[in-house]
C-alpha cells in the first residue's frame, strides 16, 4: 500500500520532504454521514470489521445501544446513541457514526515523531502506515477528535483508513457500501458538499431550522462530514466537538519549542566553545601546589 500510493502523498509525518507533485489531478474525496437518515443498524460497523479483518474481543452488554462502548484498536468506527429532549419536550434519538474525520489539517500527523508513520494522500485521506509506527501515542495527543487507539498487543496506533485500499482502486469505503439507508455517502468533496446542501434544505423545510453541514474550519475542513439536524450544537451528538482545533499545547510543543530548543542548545554549546577560545582552560599552577603544601604542613604542626 505504502509504496503503491507514495506518489500521492501530500503530507508525511516528521518529514521535511517536498511531496511528489506531478500527479496533482486527484480529486479530494469525502464521506458524508447524514445523521438524519441513520437508523442505527450498525451495518457500517460490521462492514468495517469485515473488510478490514478486524475481530475485537466479544464484550458485555453495558446497558446501552453503544456496542462496543468505544473505539479501540479493533473498532475503527462505532455508532454513538444519544437520547435528547428538545425544548418542546420531544425525544430525539441522535445516532452518530464516530470515527476518524480525516482532517485537512491533521493533528495526528503533525504530532507524529516517526517519519512516514502518518501520511495524507492527495485525495485527502489520512492514513497510518503501521510499519513506521513506534507506538508513542503522540497522535492521540494531536487528534482533536479523540480517535487513534494504541494496541496494547503490538503497540501500534489504529484508526479508520477511509478504506484507502478500496478508494485507491475506485471503490467506495466498506461502510458506505453496506449502509442500507444511504445515510453514508461517498464521492468528491464538492459533490458531497452539494448533496449535503440539498439535504439541509430538505431538513429545514421539515422544521429543523438549524440543520447544517459539519465541516469544521478549525482543522481546515474534514474529509468525513456530517449532516446534522442541530448543526448549531454539534456537542449534542455524543460530544462531537463544537469547534475542533489542534490543541494549543500541541501547537507550542510541535512549533515554538523546537526552534527555541535548538537555539538554546546551540547558544550554550557555542558559548562554551568561545569561552575556551577566549579564556582557555583553568589549570592549577605550581604556586597553587606550593601554597597548598604550606597550608597542609602548617596543619601538621601543633599550634
Amino acid at each position, binding site marked *: 500500500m505504502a509504496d503503491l500510493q507514495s506518489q500521492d502523498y501530500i503530507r508525511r*509525518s*516528521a*518529514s*521535511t520532504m517536498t511531496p511528489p507533485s506531478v500527479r496533482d489531478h486527484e480529486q479530494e474525496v469525502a464521506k458524508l454521514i447524514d445523521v438524519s437518515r441513520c437508523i442505527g443498524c450498525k451495518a457500517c460497523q460490521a462492514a468495517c470489521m469485515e473488510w478490514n479483518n478486524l475481530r475485537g474481543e466479544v464484550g458485555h452488554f453495558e446497558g446501552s445501544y453503544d456496542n462496543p462502548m468505544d473505539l479501540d484498536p479493533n473498532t475503527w468506527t462505532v455508532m454513538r446513541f444519544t437520547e435528547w429532549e428538545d425544548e418542546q419536550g420531544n425525544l430525539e434519538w441522535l445516532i452518530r457514526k464516530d470515527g476518524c474525520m480525516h482532517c485537512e489539517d491533521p493533528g495526528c500527523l503533525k504530532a507524529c*515523531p*516517526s*517519519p512516514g508513520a502518518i501520511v495524507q494522500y492527495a485525495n485527502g485521506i489520512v492514513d497510518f502506515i503501521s510499519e*513506521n509506527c*513506534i*507506538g*508513542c*501515542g*503522540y497522535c*492521540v*495527543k494531536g487528534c482533536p477528535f*479523540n480517535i487513534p487507539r*494504541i494496541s*496494547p498487543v503490538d*503497540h501500534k496506533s489504529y484508526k479508520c483508513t477511509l478504506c484507502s485500499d478500496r478508494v485507491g482502486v475506485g471503490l467506495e469505503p466498506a461502510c458506505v457500501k453496506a449502509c442500507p439507508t444511504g445515510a453514508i455517502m461517498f464521492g468528491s468533496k464538492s459533490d458531497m458538499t452539494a448533496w449535503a446542501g440539498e439535504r439541509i434544505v430538505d431538513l429545514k423545510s421539515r422544521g429543523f431550522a438549524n440543520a447544517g453541514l459539519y465541516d469544521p474550519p478549525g482543522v481546515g475542513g474534514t474529509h468525513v462530514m456530517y449532516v446534522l439536524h442541530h448543526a448549531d450544537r454539534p456537542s449534542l451528538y455524543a460530544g462531537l466537538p463544537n469547534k475542533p482545533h489542534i*490543541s494549543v*499545547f*500541541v501547537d*507550542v*510543543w510541535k512549533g515554538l*519549542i*523546537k526552534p*527555541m*530548543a*535548538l537555539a*538554546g*542548545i546551540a547558544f*550554550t*554549546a557555542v558559548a*562554551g566553545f568561545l*569561552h*575556551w577560545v577566549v*579564556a*582557555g*582552560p*583553568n*589549570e*592549577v*599552577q*605550581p604556586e*597553587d*601546589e*606550593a*601554597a*597548598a*603544601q604550606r*597550608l*597542609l604542613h*602548617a*596543619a601538621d604542626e601543633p599550634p
Partner: protein
Amino acid sequence: MSHPKGTLTRNTTAARINHWLTAGCFVLLMLSGLSMFDPMLFFLSELFGGGQWARAVHPWIGTVLLVSYAGLIVQFWRDNLWSRDDVMWTLAINRVLANEEEDVPEVARFNAGQKFVFWSMALLVPALFVTGVVIWDVYFSPYTTIEQQRIAVLIHSMAAIAAIIVWITHVYAAIWVRGSVRAMTQGYVTPGWAWRHHRKWLRRLAATGSTGPKPRAGGNTPRT
C-alpha cells in the same frame, strides 16, 4: 582505588559509580528523547534498534536515572546548601570565567555554579519523571485525560531542553577546570587543585587532618 601519595579524595568510589550511572542514563535519555522530539534527529533512534525500541526503553532508563539521581542527592545535598558566600561568588563570576580566582570568595566543597547544576537537576529530574509517567502510554495512559497528557508532554519537552542546557554547562565546566574530570573518574585531586578552586574545603580538610572528601569528624573547627 589507590591514589597517588599526597593527593586528596574528591569523590568516593560510591559517589563516582553513582555519578557515572546517572551520566550514562542521561546521555541515553538525551539521545532517545531527542529522536522523538525533532524529526531531524529521528535517526538517533537507530542507536537503540529503531523507533519502537527507543520509545520502549526511554522511560525505563528514566526510571533508573530517577533512582540514581536520588542517590546523588543523598550523597551531595549537604555540601550543596546555599550560603551567603555563594552570592558573593556569583557576583564575581566574571573573574571566575577569566580564570582569575585570587580575589573571589573562597569556595567550600562546591561553588555556586556546581550548586546551580545540582539543584537544577534535583528539580528537573523529578519533573521529567512525573510528566514522563503521564505520557508513558503503555502503562499509564488510562489514568490521565488526553488534555493532561498534552500538557505533560509539553512540560516534559521544555524540562528536557533545560536539563540538556544545564548538562552542557556541567560538561564544559568539567573540561574547562582542569583536573575536574579526573576527580570524577579516578576520584582524586591534588592539594593545589583544591587550593585554587575549593580553598575553604581544603582548609577544613587540613584543619582536621582529613584526606577528603569530608573533614574528619570530631576535628578542629575550620580555620578561615
